[in-house]
C-alpha cells in the first residue's frame, strides 16, 4: 500500500527530474507544476501533472465555460486544458470568490456561458448570481473535487433546467478515478474508470473503508491511499457498469466543505475543549435550501458523561459553539448565520457514548 509519504517520494523524484529538464516549448502546455496538501495539513508536495490529448477531450464540446475552482494552480490547470481542448474561437472565464458580487449577474449575462465546471460548493454560489435567461443557456455542468448532496443537485437542476449535470471522481495525485457519472446513481456514486483498480482497505461491517487506487497509467503508483473513505459494491447498474464506488468523504472526516465554508474536525475539537460543556460530540452537516438559496446546516449531537441535560444547557452550547467555531479564517458560525449563509445550529443530547468505527468519524455529511 502506498501512503502519502510514499507518494511524496515518487512525486519529489518526478518534480526534480522535471525541474532539471523542462519540456520543449511546443510541449509546455502539456504540463502543470503545483503544490498539493492544503486541507490535509500534511507536508507540501511538489507535483508535475501531465496532460495527454485524452485529458483535454472533455472540453471539446464547450465554447464558453465558466471555471469555478479553488486553488490558483487548479484554475490554471483547467484553463490550460480548456485552451487546448475547446474548439477554435471558444473562450473561457475563470471566476474567483471575490467576483461574487451584485455586478456578476450583468457580466455573466454578457459572457453568456454554455457550461460551468468546478467545485459544487462554488457552482451553487454562482447560481445565486445568474439571471434566468443566462441560466437557460447553460447546457452542461461538470462537477469534480467535492462531495455533492441531493440539496445541491436539486438547486442546480432548478437553476439550470437545460443543463446536463455530471460529475467525476478525480484526485490531483493520480488523475481520473471514475467514469463520468452515468445518471442512474445518486450523488457521490461512481463507476471506476477503465484502467484504474479501486480497492477498499480494512472495510468495516458495512463495507466502508479507506479507498486505494492503482492507475494503470502510473505503474509506480500501487494501492495509493487517497485519504478518502468509501464503499465498493459489485452490482449491475442500468448503464451496464458492474461496480459502484460510493465516496463518503475524507478519512476520519477531518473536514467537510459546506456552503462555501470548511468545517474542520480540529477546529470543532478545539471549541469543544474551550466551551467545556460536553465530553464528546458528533456533528451532522448538510445543505438546506431556504428562499432559493443554499445554506449550510449543522446539527450538534453532544454526550455528557454525567448525563446532565436541559433546554438551558442546550441553548448555552448552541450559543457558545456558534460564537467560537470558525468556519473560515475570519468568520464564525454565528457570523455566517447572521449573513444567511448558515441556518442556526441545533443541539441534541446523546444517551450513550458514541460508537467508534471508521477511525472515529466525528463530522458527518448527511442530506437534509
Amino acid at each position: 500500500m502506498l501512503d502519502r509519504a510514499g507518494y511524496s517520494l515518487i512525486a519529489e523524484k518526478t518534480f526534480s527530474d522535471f525541474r532539471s529538464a523542462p519540456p520543449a516549448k511546443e510541449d509546455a502546455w502539456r504540463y502543470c507544476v503545483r503544490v498539493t496538501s492544503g486541507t490535509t495539513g500534511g507536508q507540501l508536495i511538489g507535483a508535475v501533472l501531465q496532460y495527454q490529448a485524452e485529458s483535454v477531450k472533455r472540453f471539446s464540446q464547450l465554447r464558453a465555460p465558466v471555471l469555478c475552482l479553488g486553488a490558483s494552480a487548479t484554475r490554471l490547470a483547467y484553463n490550460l486544458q480548456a485552451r487546448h481542448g475547446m474548439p477554435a474561437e471558444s473562450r473561457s472565464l475563470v471566476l474567483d470568490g471575490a467576483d461574487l458580487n451584485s455586478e456578476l449577474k450583468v457580466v455573466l449575462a454578457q459572457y453568456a456561458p454554455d457550461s460551468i465546471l468546478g467545485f459544487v460548493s462554488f457552482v451553487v454560489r454562482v447560481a445565486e448570481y445568474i439571471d434566468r435567461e443566462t441560466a437557460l443557456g447553460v447546457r452542461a455542468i461538470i462537477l469534480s473535487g467535492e462531495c455533492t448532496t441531493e440539496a445541491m443537485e436539486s438547486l442546480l437542476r432548478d437553476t439550470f433546467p437545460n443543463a446536463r449535470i455530471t460529475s467525476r471522481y478525480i484526485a490531483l495525485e493520480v488523475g481520473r478515478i471514475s467514469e463520468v457519472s452515468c445518471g442512474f446513481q445518486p450523488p457521490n456514486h461512481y463507476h471506476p474508470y477503465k484502467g484504474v483498480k479501486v480497492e477498499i482497505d480494512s472495510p468495516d461491517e458495512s463495507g466502508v473503508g479507506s479507498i486505494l487506487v492503482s492507475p494503470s497509467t502510473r505503474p509506480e503508483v500501487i494501492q495509493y491511499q487517497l485519504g478518502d473513505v468509501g464503499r465498493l459494491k459489485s452490482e449491475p447498474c442500468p448503464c451496464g457498469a458492474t461496480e459502484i464506488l460510493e465516496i463518503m468523504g475524507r478519512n476520519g472526516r477531518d473536514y467537510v466543505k459546506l456552503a462555501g465554508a470548511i468545517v474542520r474536525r480540529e477546529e470543532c475539537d478545539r471549541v469543544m475543549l474551550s466551551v467545556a460543556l460536553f465530553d464528546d460530540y458528533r456533528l451532522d452537516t448538510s445543505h438546506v435550501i431556504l428562499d432559493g438559496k443554499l445554506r449550510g446546516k449543522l446539527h450538534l449531537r453532544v454526550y455528557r458523561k454525567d448525563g446532565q441535560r436541559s433546554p438551558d444547557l442546550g441553548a448555552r452550547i448552541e450559543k457558545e459553539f456558534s460564537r467560537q467555531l470558525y468556519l473560515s479564517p475570519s468568520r464564525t458560525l454565528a457570523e455566517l448565520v447572521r449573513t444567511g449563509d448558515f441556518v442556526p445550529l441545533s443541539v441534541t443530547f446523546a444517551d450513550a457514548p458514541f460508537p467508534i468505527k471508521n477511525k472515529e468519524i466525528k463530522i458527518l455529511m448527511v442530506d437534509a
Partner: protein
Amino acid sequence: MNDTLHESLRVLINEVGSNQLADIYHTVWGERRALDVLPVISRDELFGSPLASRRYKSASSLVKIFHVGEKTFLSEWAYEDVAREQFGTETKRPMVYLSDNAESIEKSMWCYERGMVPLIGEVHNPAAAVAMAKKYQIDSLITDELSLERFRPFFGDCPYTLTSISIIGPQFTIARIQWVLPYAKEVRLVLTLPETGAFARAKLEVNPVFSPLPRCDIETVGETLVLTKQDSLVTPIIRYDTAISSKSVRIQNA
C-alpha cells in the same frame, strides 16, 4: 510615430471604424477616422459597453473580470494577443505571483503561450508560494508591488540571483520595492492595466523613465496618459484614457 507605424494605425482605425461585428468605436467616433481628431475614450465608455459591442474579432480567448472600485468589467483577450504581450522575460522556470486571480491566470497563460511552464503562486498563501518557489528553483518572477512584499521571505536565503523580476501595475512606489534590486540581474517595471495589457517599461531605479513598448503610443492629454495600441485586439485600445496621472510616471517617447 514614424510613417510605417502611422500607416498601420491608420489601417487599424479604418478596420475598427467599419467593423461589422462590433460598433462601440463607431458610436463614439462617428465618421471621424483621423487619429488626431478621434476623441479619447474612457473606461466606462469602452468597457462599460456590452462585450458583444466591443468584440472586434473572434478567436480562442480568455475572458477576465476586473474590478475598479465598486465597478466590475469584462475584458477579453485572444491568446494570440496575450502571447505578443511583454509582461516578463522568457526563462526556463518562471513564477507568476500576483494579487489578482484573473491577472495571475492571464500572465501564467502568457508563459504557456511562449512555451514556458510557470509556477503560479497561491495569492492567499505566501508561505506556500515561497516554499514552492524554492522547490521549483524559479529563475524569473512576474509580480506586483503588493505580492512582491508578501514574497519577500523567498529572498532571505535564496542562494542565487534570478534572471529577471518584472513588477507590473499601473503605478509604482519606488521606495517600497527598490529593496529587491540585488536579487535579480534585471528588475523591470512594466506599466500594465488589466484591460490594456502592458504598454511601457522601465528599469527599476530611483527615478524610472518609462519607454513605450513596441506598437504602443502614449500621449498626455490633460493630466492623464492616453494609450493607443497598434495591434488588432479583441477590444482594440485606441486613444484610451488609462486614468493614470501623467504626474505619477515619466514617459520617454521616442
